[in-house]
């Protein structure tokens, strides 16, 4: 295996991932209204598939390209003799363009970006997890709600931190400003984030987003954040029995925050306006379970179709791709 073959396959992976992401991202953007009508779960599934799909499909494409030369290597034959009629891209010989300075520089830049981003995300979540453990040590736990702690702060704060072992934090300031029903609603909302594994799922998606087309990744992530909030609002409304209680808690806390100047920043709720959440709750928006099943079937069908087509015409596809990329 040569360095040029590694560079070539890595660049093919990155380019195809960005291209597939561009196609899916455009679909997501144009289908946003339709997804909204299907419900929050459908929106979240579509955003997840838009972020996870491209690198997975790109990996399959690279696998298809590498499979033939890999099997030839294992069999001890020279697969490249079959390529006398055109240029080729294989594990043994790589590609002529992959040795050019622009290709090496491009791969180096992208690899650095992905590595830095990965470390940045990892470090941010390690920090948040340490903080979550710290809150658990420093706060007073709620006997009736596992994982929930109360902190002696006057700022009205309610949040969940920690991707591995999440802790729900409610400040004294928030607790005192809510009535008993609203308190239950905010706890149920945060516990829904814990039950859905939103924090670790979001961290993984941010890593997948490194391989997506720039711009579209942030759009898909914002859509995911927005739907995550609405899903948890819905769960909280189901738990407390009335959506107006959850909507009331949102408005009550928002009002306190705007008056007291609580710290703002990197939270899921930043992607979702309060108006949007309240209207979504009051209008009994569908939860999107049916839409999610539809989307999954559609993607599964498409994926199976592609896999079958690749298996049936593997040699032709392999040679076609090599002709384009070689």
């Amino acid at each position: 295996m040569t360095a040029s073959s590694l560079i070539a396959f890595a660049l093919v992976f990155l380019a195809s991932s960005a291209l597939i992401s561009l196609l899916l991202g455009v679909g997501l953007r144009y289908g946003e209204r339709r997804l909204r009508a299907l419900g929050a779960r459908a929106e979240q599934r579509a955003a997840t598939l838009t972020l996870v799909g491209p690198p997975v499909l790109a990996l399959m494409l690279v696998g298809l390209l590498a499979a033939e030369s890999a099997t030839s290597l294992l069999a001890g034959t020279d697969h490249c003799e079959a390529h006398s009629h055109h240029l080729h891209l294989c594990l043994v010989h790589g590609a002529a363009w992959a040795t050019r300075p622009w290709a090496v520089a491009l791969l180096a830049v992208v690899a650095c970006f992905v590595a830095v981003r990965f470390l940045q995300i990892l470090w941010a979540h390690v920090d948040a997890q340490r903080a979550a453990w710290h809150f658990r040590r420093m706060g007073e736990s709620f006997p009736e709600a596992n994982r929930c702690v109360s902190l002696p702060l006057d700022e009205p704060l309610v949040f969940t931190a920690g991707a591995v072992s999440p802790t729900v934090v409610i400040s004294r300031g928030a607790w005192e400003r809510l009535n008993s029903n609203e308190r239950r609603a905010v706890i149920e909302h945060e516990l829904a984030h814990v039950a859905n594994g939103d924090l670790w799922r979001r961290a993984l998606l941010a890593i997948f987003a490194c391989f997506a087309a720039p711009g579209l990744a942030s759009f898909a992530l914002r859509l995911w954040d927005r739907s995550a909030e609405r899903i948890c609002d819905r769960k909280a409304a189901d738990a407390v029995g009335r959506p107006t209680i959850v909507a009331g808690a949102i408005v009550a806390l928002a009002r306190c925050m705007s008056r007291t100047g609580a710290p703002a920043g990197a939270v899921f709720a930043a992607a979702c306006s309060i108006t949007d959440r309240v209207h979504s709750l009051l209008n009994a928006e569908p939860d999107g379970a049916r839409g999610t099943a539809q989307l999954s079937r559609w993607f599964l069908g498409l994926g199976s179709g592609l896999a079958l087509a690749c298996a049936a015409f593997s040699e032709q596809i392999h040679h076609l791709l090599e002709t384009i990329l070689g």
Partner: protein
Amino acid sequence: MWTLDQSAKVLGTLEEKVMDALWKRSPMAVRDVCKLLRGDHELAYTTVMTTLDRLFKKGLLLRHKDGIAFVYEPALSKDEYRCRVLQRTISDLMTKKADADPVLAAFVDAAATVDEANLDRLADLIAERRRHGK
């Protein structure tokens, strides 16, 4: 010298023990702190003196001379210290990590809550729904 804000991080184990001792009883000289802590471990006088000096430099202790020795007392109560640490940790999580990605799932984002008139409209809408029994 460190500022109080910089020191508002989780302390080391010995630093925590020293602070706890001084929150229980203060002011105390190095020798008194040593005596109080010796119940747990055999601690050298110089180790305790260095720890007290470090806590003073972090702004967590005040000190003044009593004869030839320094006596120390906490610069803030245990509750004030806890609040300071918590506020700093939360502020760090919410602001410094903004360039990475959300690491918190907050019930409401403070940045999105500035329009009082809009909040009034939403509150009216909720009240109307409540009147209709929803």
